[in-house]
């Protein structure tokens, strides 16, 4: 394509040919940069997908479980336990536990102290409950003295009438079924390596017989009357008889042959063992069949379920939940906001609206910006020294008479530490938001006869609010994922009570995840992944709120 220039070209401009050449070069450079942008976004996408993929892969997958008693054998026709009513469930407990049912009632149901248990009447055991007819005033001792034909229905009715169905199911699971997770596999294996093809299964079945055949051959060969012994005897005989060299050489050769044969068989057995192991490991089903013949496989098990969200910590991964961690994180978030928002916004208002441009104020502002870059663990050290140690009477609540023993490792200490951590970010964001409020609005307000405070409160702050809140939410979502300062401040790793206020001991989601990933058992990594999903959901939800806020108020 040629385009004739209609205007005279000045001598500074390149001639037509040079222009064309350079134009091609300019397009090439533009193309190269575009390629780099694609590459960059590709890397980000791959990283994101890998992150989510890895977490999801761990949090879902197959497990193999073993029971002391198979739940299917508890009912006559193998019916699902969930479909039974309370009396039937209680009957199962009574049948399976026998006399131990009384212990269960003492530990799980009774309202009286255990030393008074045997002399208490049933009505005293469950003060507001419903009781089996005719036995209201019978004591535990009296019922126990009855013969079991008569006593068992009483216990059964007592349990059935006073324990909700969920509780009964839990009791059956705990006391009778005693489920144990013996192995777990990630989602990808559950999807693609669940079952082995039939030839593999057949091969797995034949290998042991092959090994057995080879082993017996080897045993024969090495027995006192076997091939090796015979050859050795023949050689010894020949030597004693002073046979000629040729005979001895050939006999010696025969011994070596027999020994080589034995070594060969050993190698074959080793190879078969190895093959067997590889084949067994190639799928979940074969692996479980080989290692845990009594276990049952649940192909798709989600570690993340309502039970996981609502139960307390436990030292067994299958029973562990993150209720305490979620509550701890929520409490932290609440206290952080209550502390950091007013302080941060007030600082930003001072710096932006009141501070004159002098050395001191410039120094403060520069330092605020520097503090935003200080590693979080250093804030943890500060929190430990100041909030946990020095201010212990205050942070433990003992000054207010809330806590019995002074222990500064509380929600309040951690929240103040995290609050300090995000304070610079809140200040910087709030300053940006305040700076973005047009000066024309301030002037208009002053021009109406507003005081400085009225102008800030009624005009500047409302206009800056979306920006301030966006900054707040983004920094809170950073705080909620922080681990290092919480470890230093001293979050509890095993906590069996709910954090219920600023002065309670606490744990938080990232702490829980950190602890679980450090455990050697596989299943802890699975529940860590499930907890990571919960944490990610919270963080993404917070960030979405920030985006919605920003869009709603965007001019």
């Amino acid at each position, binding site marked *: 394509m040629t385009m004739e220039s209609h205007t005279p070209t000045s001598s500074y401009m390149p001639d037509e040919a040079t222009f064309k050449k350079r134009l091609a070069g300019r397009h090439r450079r533009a193309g190269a940069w575009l390629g780099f942008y694609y590459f960059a976004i590709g890397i980000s996408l791959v990283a994101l997908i890998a992150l989510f993929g890895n977490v999801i892969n761990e949090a879902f997958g197959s497990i193999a479980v073993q029971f002391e008693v198979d739940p299917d054998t508890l009912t006559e026709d193998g019916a699902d336990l969930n479909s039974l009513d309370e009396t039937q469930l209680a009957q199962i407990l009574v049948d399976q536990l026998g006399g131990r049912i009384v212990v269960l009632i003492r530990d799980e149901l009774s309202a009286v102290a255990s030393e008074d248990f045997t002399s208490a009447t049933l009505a005293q055991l469950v003060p507001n409950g419903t009781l089996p007819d005719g036995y209201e005033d019978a004591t535990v001792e009296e019922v126990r003295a009855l013969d079991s034909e008569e006593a068992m229905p009483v216990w059964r009715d007592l349990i059935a009438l006073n324990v909700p169905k969920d509780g009964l199911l839990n009791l059956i699971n705990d006391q009778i079924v005693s489920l144990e997770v013996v192995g777990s596999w990630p989602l990808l294996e559950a999807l693609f390596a669940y079952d082995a093809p039939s030839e593999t299964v057949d091969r797995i079945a034949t290998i042991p017989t092959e090994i057995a055949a080879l082993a017996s051959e080897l045993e024969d060969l090495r027995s006192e009357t076997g091939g090796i012994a015979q050859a050795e005897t023949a050689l010894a005989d020949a030597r004693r008889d002073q046979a000629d060299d040729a005979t001895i050489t050939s006999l010696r050769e025969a011994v070596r042959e027999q020994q080589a044969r034995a070594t060969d068989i050993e190698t074959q057995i080793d190879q078969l063992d190895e093959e067997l192991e590889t084949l067994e490991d190639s799928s979940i089903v074969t692996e479980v069949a080989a290692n845990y013949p009594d276990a049952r496989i649940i192909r798709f098990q989600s570690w993340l379920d309502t039970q996981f969200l609502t139960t307390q910590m436990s030292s067994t991964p299958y029973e562990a939940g993150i209720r305490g961690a979620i509550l701890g994180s929520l409490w932290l978030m609440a206290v952080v906001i209550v502390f950091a928002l007013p302080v941060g916004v007030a600082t930003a208002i001072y710096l932006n609206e009141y501070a*004159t*441009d002098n050395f001191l104020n410039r120094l403060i502002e520069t330092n605020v910006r520097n503090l935003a870059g200080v590693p979080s663990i250093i804030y943890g050290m500060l929190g430990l020294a100041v909030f946990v140690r020095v201010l212990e009477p205050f942070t433990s609540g003992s000054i207010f008479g809330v806590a019995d023993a002074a222990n500064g490792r509380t929600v309040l200490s951690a929240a103040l530490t995290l609050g300090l951590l995000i304070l610079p970010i809140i200040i910087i964001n709030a300053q940006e938001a305040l700076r973005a409020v*047009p000066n*024309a*609005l*301030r*002037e*208009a*307000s*002053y*021009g*109406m*006869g*507003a*005081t400085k405070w*009225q102008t800030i409160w*009624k*005009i500047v702050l*409302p*206009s800056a609010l979306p920006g301030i809140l966006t900054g707040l939410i983004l920094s809170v979502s950073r705080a909620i994922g922080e681990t290092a300062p919480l470890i230093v401040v001293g979050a509890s790793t095993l906590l069996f009570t709910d954090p219920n206020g600023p002065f309670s001991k606490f744990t938080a989601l990232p702490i829980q995840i950190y602890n679980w990933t450090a455990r050697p058992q596989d299943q802890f990594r699975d529940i860590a992944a499930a907890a990571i999903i919960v944490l990610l959901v919270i963080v993404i939800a917070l960030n979405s709120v920030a985006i919605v806020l920003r869009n709603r108020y965007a001019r």
Partner: protein
Amino acid sequence: MVYQPEYDDNQDYAVMLDDVNVFYGDYQAVKDVTIPVEKGRITAFIGPSGCGKSTVLRAINRMNDLVEGARVTGNVQYHGKNLYDADVDPVEVRRRIGMVFQKPNPFPKSIYDNVAYGPRLLGVNKKPILDEIVEKSLRGAALWDEVKNDLRKSGLALSGGQQQRLCIARTIAVEPDIILMDEPASALDPIATQRIEQLMREELSEYTIIIVTHNMQQAQRASDYVAFFNIRKRDQNNQEIRWGELAEFGETDQVFNNPSSAETAEYIAGRFG
């Protein structure tokens, strides 16, 4: 010598500027400005860019206080009181001397809340009274008929000309003595400009208005008095300086038809500025 307009010592002026100087730090922006502003009339400040007319305007309601390093000397006489005396509260000054800005700047609130903002600042919070003030002010700014059905709409949703009239309504809602207008029509189209000029002549005829404008026709059409500012670049000793001065002041007809100085005549004729 700085130009001194004639004025009557015994007359009660709305504002009397007497030898007003404005400094930004060490820099003197305006020197020895003396202007008598007559009550109930429209005074226009005209002059080339950088001559200090806006600076003088903002000195009248102490808006310069908001600029760091700004300083005003001289006498801004208002009801027998110098506005720059130590016991004068700038907040009170601005409530008595309202201001309309170059760019329409309604608050990001509803039309109603924009107009009610000033009264609320002063502690007027009763709904019926506010309703009355809002209607009266919007009528006063010739905006009522256009917005009476959606007072809850954001002030930012109005057109540029409507926004500027909303700002005028907002200003008159606190019942000021004087309205300062800093090029109120420069961001508007000709029809909206005409509405503003008409408004100044009709609905706002009771008010003392001081308007800064770049538009000669506007000054000629809308004002009763004209103050022409010019930039002085050399002092009497031929030293290089740069500040704004009042070059001429008088009734509009006289300044436009029979200017007393050659530079006024040149500026009005469009030969510089």
